[in-house]
């Protein structure tokens, strides 16, 4: 049974970048970009990724959309793709991305490889949510989502491993889909939203036996973090719980409903608020000692300011740095490659207060010293 690979290329992703347009959502901006002679990098990057898969082209069926949404890129890379769907050549929209994803879900592809940025990721999420594993070839302007490989070549390598060896070397995890309000971004206001989670394959760093022994699975690490946090929780303290995949098991272990994309509040181990906005948080805080629990959201290393603005500078100011617990797996911290954790609360003074070093909770009786910057 041949494995099926779905390919979706957003041919205009990244077009706004070089000419300083900070994105390409919407026809007016796109028009501007074209006027500025902007060129999209997305098709080239898709080809770069696909070249990694040419070795197994006889063993997989590559299914894609017409023209520049994948057909052309696949052929240049050396594939004979199965082309489905209909689009207007040179006039593709977010709608086409969504239709493509849905069509591929219908055909039960094993993996969707897509080339684009956060906007493209958001489109795919809206269409298929977590029903299929997907992997992003990084080509957009704004890449805050965590659904991407580190480079087009590595996207190809990961897809290769997933299709060839599947579960032996690969694991499926959940990764955040973020999107930044482009309009606000152009006006130098940053407003990011956590849209949801996509299923993304990643390589297990397997090594058993010999000197190295075996490494704990990601799942057991996250469970350990949850146990540690619950052990640390004190009575008569309000806990403001951020979102993120590392936070979910904490709520699950406590038997509480978790707002996947929003902020919840716990008091004496009971849920007292769900999906709260800033004002609701501040109201709940009145007269109570408060702590905040957050994790790293997205691929850029943010702990405040991307996807949890409800935990505003006003909230953080009242809570104080010493009452903030940051949780993350060791692999997540290592994936930042020595870059610090980032905060963007909107207030310079609060950003400064948060910066410096923090002991991130990585397991039971385990901490990692990490720098925070802004």
């Amino acid at each position: 049974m041949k494995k099926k690979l779905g390919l979706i290329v957003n041919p205009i992703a990244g077009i706004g970048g070089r000419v300083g347009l900070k994105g390409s959502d919407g026809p007016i901006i796109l028009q501007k970009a074209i006027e500025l002679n902007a060129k999209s990098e997305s098709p080239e990057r898709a080809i770069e990724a696909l070249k990694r898969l040419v070795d197994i082209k006889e063993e997989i069926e590559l299914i894609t959309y017409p023209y520049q949404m994948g057909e052309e890129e696949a052929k240049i890379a050396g594939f004979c793709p199965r082309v489905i769907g209909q689009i207007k050549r040179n006039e593709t929209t977010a709608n086409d991305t969504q239709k493509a994803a849905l069509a591929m879900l219908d055909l039960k592809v094993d993996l969707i490889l897509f080339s684009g940025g956060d906007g493209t990721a958001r489109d795919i999420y809206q269409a298929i949510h977590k029903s299929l594993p997907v992997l992003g070839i990084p080509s957009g302007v704004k890449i805050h989502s965590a659904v991407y490989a580190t480079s087009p070549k590595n996207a190809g390598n990961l897809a290769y491993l997933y299709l060839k060896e599947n579960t032996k070397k690969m694991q499926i995890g959940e990764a955040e889909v973020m999107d930044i309000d482009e309009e606000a971004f152009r006006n130098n206001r940053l407003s990011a939203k956590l849209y949801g989670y996509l299923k993304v394959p990643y390589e297990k760093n397997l090594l058993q036996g010999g000197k190295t022994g075996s490494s704990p699975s990601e799942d057991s690490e996250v469970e350990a973090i949850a146990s540690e946090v619950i052990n640390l929780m004190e009575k008569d303290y309000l806990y403001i719980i951020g979102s993120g995949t590392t936070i979910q098991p904490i709520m699950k272990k406590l038997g509480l409903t978790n707002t996947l994309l929003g902020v919840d509040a716990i008091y004496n181990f009971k849920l007292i608020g769900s999906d709260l906005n800033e004002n609701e948080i501040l109201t709940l805080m009145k007269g109570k000692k408060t702590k905040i629990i957050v994790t790293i959201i997205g691929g850029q290393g943010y702990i405040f300011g991307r996807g949890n603005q409800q935990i505003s500078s006003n909230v953080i100011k009242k809570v104080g740095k010493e009452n903030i617990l940051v949780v993350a797996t060791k692999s997540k911290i290592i994936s930042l490659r020595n870059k610090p954790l980032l905060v963007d609360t909107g207030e310079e003074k609060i950003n400064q207060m948060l910066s410096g070093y923090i002991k991130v909770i990585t397991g039971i009786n385990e901490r990692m010293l990490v720098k925070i910057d802004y």
Partner: protein
Amino acid sequence: MTKDIKIRNYHAPVWSEPIIMELSQKGQRGILVPQSEKEIKKQVGQASQYIPSDMQRRELPQLPELAQPQVIRHYEHLAQQTLGMEMNIDISQGTCTMKYSPKVNEILASKIQEIHPYQDVDTIQGILEIIYKLDLCLREISGMDQFTFQPGGGAHATFTNSCIMRAYHDMNGELAQRNEVITTMFSHPCDTASPRTAGFKVITLMPDENGYPDLEALKAACSKHTAGLMITNPEDTGIYNPKIEEYVKAVHDVGGLCFYDQANLNGVMGIARAKEAGFDACHFNLHKTFSSPHGCMGPACGAYGTTKALEPFLPTPIVSFDGGKYHLDYNLPNSIGKVREFFGNVEVFIKSFAWILSMGPDGLVEAAQASVINNNYLSKLLLAIPGVVKHYAEGKVRLDQVRFSWEKLKEDTGIGTEEVQNRMVDFGIQSYHTSHHPYIVPEPFTPEPCETYSKEDCEYWAAVLKQISHEAYTNPEIVRNAPHNSSIHKLNKENLDNPEKWAMTWRAYQRKWKNKIG
């Protein structure tokens, strides 16, 4: 290196050897134990009465039943299939310091078979003299004031240290407050695991672009909660932290203790000492740096030494000398107790002691220097191979080992460190050590050409990796489908954490899959 290295056309024996339980034939015996004489039986009675009732078996053990030739054949087959240290250029096991274990020391050590540790001290003066003098040698090499040889390995030594740190702070009434131990990401994982097992919270520091943590980061981690620092130097990357005294001072300034994990002693032996850096304790792996065989998880020894201040907490007995006789001293009132039976693994001490004597002080320094030269030579050869890169400390010299990365090879060809590992055994070289988990350097490998490997050995080892790199760029399938010439093919590398799928013993296997009672 300009001459052509001829890569061997190696092929391992393939025996498809079953588990010994499967070779069992009911009724077969290798040895028929002679019956005792009637009078002895009458006098002594049943053997079972000498075994405490709660330790007695209720059923017979299900030992495999084989005759002697079949047993020998089975284990010879397994031995033939093992690419052991003496069979191959074992530069592959970086951080292990796989140096040659002189055969003559095996013969020396075998003499202890005649001795029992419960013998009167007067009758084992020779052994005690060896232990005492080994202690003196290690004191000289480290600058510490007293050693114990009870810990059976490196992690055992770091755990002993964690217990001593605990006892020290407890005695000062500060244990409740001092519940944190600091270590670094590149120190051995046992420097994280041992203090946690002893009840501490461990704070790990990440390396910066120099390859070791920033001093500012260390100071940020230090507080009134700090019990101590447990650190390796040089770390597994081979990078020596030149500011180590300042690190020790920072921890001392907040009242913490500093422990030097010297698993990586080989490159600084006889050159730099724990004492001058200010450390309160250190350990050596006698089965690494001091030539005792690694023995595949034992017997080994993590010789642990401390300054005078921590001596009262050491495990007992210590061997002392009054100028005329050697004694076993149990009189350490604050001792944490025993960490191992009897005196420790005595055969390991004998081999290490003999090795130290045969090298002499100049020889030890020369060994360190040779290992650094070997490593830097190999490093030059490896960095010339397409696809190999090195992280951290650009332009700085490494000591006895280097952590390399195949990250470029992976990106260019899709072939990464695991695939290379599988392929190298086809050339008669053991799979290299990649790195401890979690990987920080991507697609890592860590060779260590210590002083007993020749220039030609280094060249062969590098030539094998060069060949595999070439294959990755031109014929990647041969690497992906490796090994081709080994005793077995690829291992299933799943975690053995599903009891529905795996059995950890033969008995469990039979119970689960064949519904046999056992």
